[in-house]
């Protein structure tokens, strides 16, 4: 039965072309090659584990493969996809029994076997190259030298070394996990709860809330706060009192006195307003912003925000834009010279409406001229104005004939007496 190829074509898979920017997937090609070779060798596996690409109905997972310890749930997942390349390797190296294969057979085993199998399976793919290389010529070692080598040989076979490494890594991971768990337990015991995992609390930011460090100072601080509160309360009361007094006072004054006071206040306001400068020609108006105002702002900030910019000049600014050429008379000088700037200046300048300014301005040049010299009427005149000529008289009423007082045929012909 032809091996199921993933590509559904009888063409041999070609080596992958170089395409810039794409990573080469070399393993697939090599695997396909191997499957082709195994095809040629015609070694079929009766025991076919369900492969990831195409499970066959006839091939049910063999008993020993199924007998996996279900408690090793995390390693279970590695079994299925790993078994596919594994199987192909088995085809390749038939009769070449490695330590991994034998361990694979007794799979009711521990984790290390599985790990060993996996790692040795990885090793196999690299060791695949070795059988293809020309074998080294065996050299003879005398018995004495052999004994030396046996003792001095720390290195075992590559597979075992890999298994060793895996075991060591696992142990380290276990240790770290253990340490982490212990730390968590210790933290919980010490009172730092798991939800309060702000490991980034700077110790310098930590505020000390132990009482009794300096009782005198603390008492003094408290007294100060309390006095401030009392003072605040008193001030509030005084404010209220003043308000009430003011209201009373105004009520008791007569109307004229009230007006006099109001006038003074309004004049004061006007003076304030006049004290501000005049805005220069086309000076840019900066709105202070409606938010972020009030007592929450610093005093300095308030001063800056409320300063009077009218007539303010800064470096490079001409006092009066009237001296500049037309092109430079823009409100916002940052836009000068930029591409896309339209000739639009401001609404007033662009307005084309008449707004009633020219209502009375009729054409008066010819007013004094004689009729003969006046220009033609616009709009062609009413048609009534041509009064000269024979056609000027209106048409008179039609004269009726004598014999058609009575009834007449509708045609208007004379009556027939036939």
């Amino acid at each position: 039965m032809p091996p199921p190829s993933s590509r559904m074509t009888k063409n041999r898979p070609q080596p992958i072309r170089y395409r810039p920017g794409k990573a080469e997937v070399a393993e697939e090609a090599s695997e396909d090659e191997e499957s082709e070779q195994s095809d040629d060798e015609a070694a079929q596996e009766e025991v076919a584990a369900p492969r990831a690409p195409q499970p066959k109905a006839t091939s049910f997972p063999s008993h020993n493969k199924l007998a996996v310890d279900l408690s090793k749930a995390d390693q279970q997942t590695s079994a299925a996809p790993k078994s596919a390349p594994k199987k192909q390797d088995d085809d390749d190296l038939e009769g070449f029994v490695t330590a991994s294969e034998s361990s694979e057979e007794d799979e009711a085993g521990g984790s290390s076997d599985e790990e060993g199998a996996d790692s040795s399976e990885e090793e196999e793919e690299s060791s695949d190259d070795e059988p293809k290389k020309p074998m080294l010529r065996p050299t003879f070692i005398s018995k004495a030298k052999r004994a030396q080598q046996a003792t001095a040989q720390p290195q075992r076979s590559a597979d075992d070394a890999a298994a060793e490494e895996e075991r060591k890594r696992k142990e380290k991971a276990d240790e770290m996990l253990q340490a982490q768990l212990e730390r968590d337990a210790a933290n919980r015991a010490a009172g730092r709860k798991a939800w309060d995992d702000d490991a980034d609390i700077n110790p310098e930011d930590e505020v000390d809330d132990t009482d009794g460090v300096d009782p005198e100072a603390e008492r003094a601080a408290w007294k100060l706060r309390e006095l401030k509160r009392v003072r605040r309360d008193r001030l509030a009361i005084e404010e209220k009192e003043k308000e009430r007094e003011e209201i009373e006072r105004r009520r008791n004054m007569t109307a004229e006195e009230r007006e006099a006071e109001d006038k003074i206040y309004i004049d004061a306001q006007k003076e304030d307003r006049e004290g501000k400068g005049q805005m220069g020609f086309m000076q840019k108006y900066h709105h202070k912003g409606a938010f972020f105002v009030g007592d929450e702002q610093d005093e300095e900030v308030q001063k800056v925000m409320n300063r009077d910019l009218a007539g303010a000049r800064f470096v490079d600014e001409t006092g009066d834009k009237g001296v500049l050429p037309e092109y430079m008379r823009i409100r916002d000088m940052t836009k000068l010279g930029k591409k896309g700037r339209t000739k639009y200046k401001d609404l007033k300048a662009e307005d084309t409406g008449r707004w009633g300014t020219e209502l009375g301005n009729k054409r008066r040049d010819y007013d004094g001229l004689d009729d003969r010299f006046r220009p033609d009427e616009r709009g062609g005149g009413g048609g009534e104005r041509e009064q000269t000529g024979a056609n000027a008289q209106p048409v008179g009423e039609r004269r009726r004939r004598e014999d058609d007082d009575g009834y007449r045929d509708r045609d208007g012909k004379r009556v027939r007496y036939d």
Partner: protein
Amino acid sequence: MAHQADAKKSLDERGYTGALIRGDNPLKLFEKAVRDRIVDSYYWKEQCFGLNAATLLDRAVELTFIGGTYGVAQKPTPFLCLAFKLLQLTPDKEIILFYLEQEEYKYLRALAAFYIRLAWEKDADVYTTLEPYLSDSRKLKRRIREGWALTHVDEFIDDLLLKNRVCATTLPKLNPRLFLEDEDRLEPRVSALGEELEELDHDDERDSASDGEVEELPNGHANGDGRPGSDGEVVSDEEMDGD
């Protein structure tokens, strides 16, 4: 009503049958955003499930700071979560007063004060209950949006009585004290400094040449000659030796 372990019903706004505060679900005292943050936080999920008044006490004595929400993600503090749980449980007045009266645990006291300010509807009661604790000068650690701050119990209670927004919640409207005094529902506040204050006032009056009128109101209240600034200055000379 039977005590439900997770009290989920009170989080669901439809069909809420339970204690009302100011005519509405008590949990609505917190804003929706804050409520969502609390309910999604780990502290709430782990530690505040199935609490009752007694077990809440256990949690509350383990508090180490007050605060609202902090950080970029507006993480709620355990203080806020426990306050939320208190609102859910709406315990009796006696229980809350018991919490408040505990001298040993200042954060528990702060929690109870917060609850009182939120939940009690009678303004006069709030003032009379909380004002005695203006003499408690212990330090409190407060978690702000970025970092920490130091405050004191009396400052915290003062904020509760005066400010609009404390600990990520808009406090319900409380009539100002002056208003209540004018209506004769409350007596003017007697400060804990009591006698010392009167002494200071007398000193002031003795020191100052009698330029203006000197009015003496009961409780040594208003400094009649209108020189409030002198209070603070005198204090700083006399009292702040320790600094």
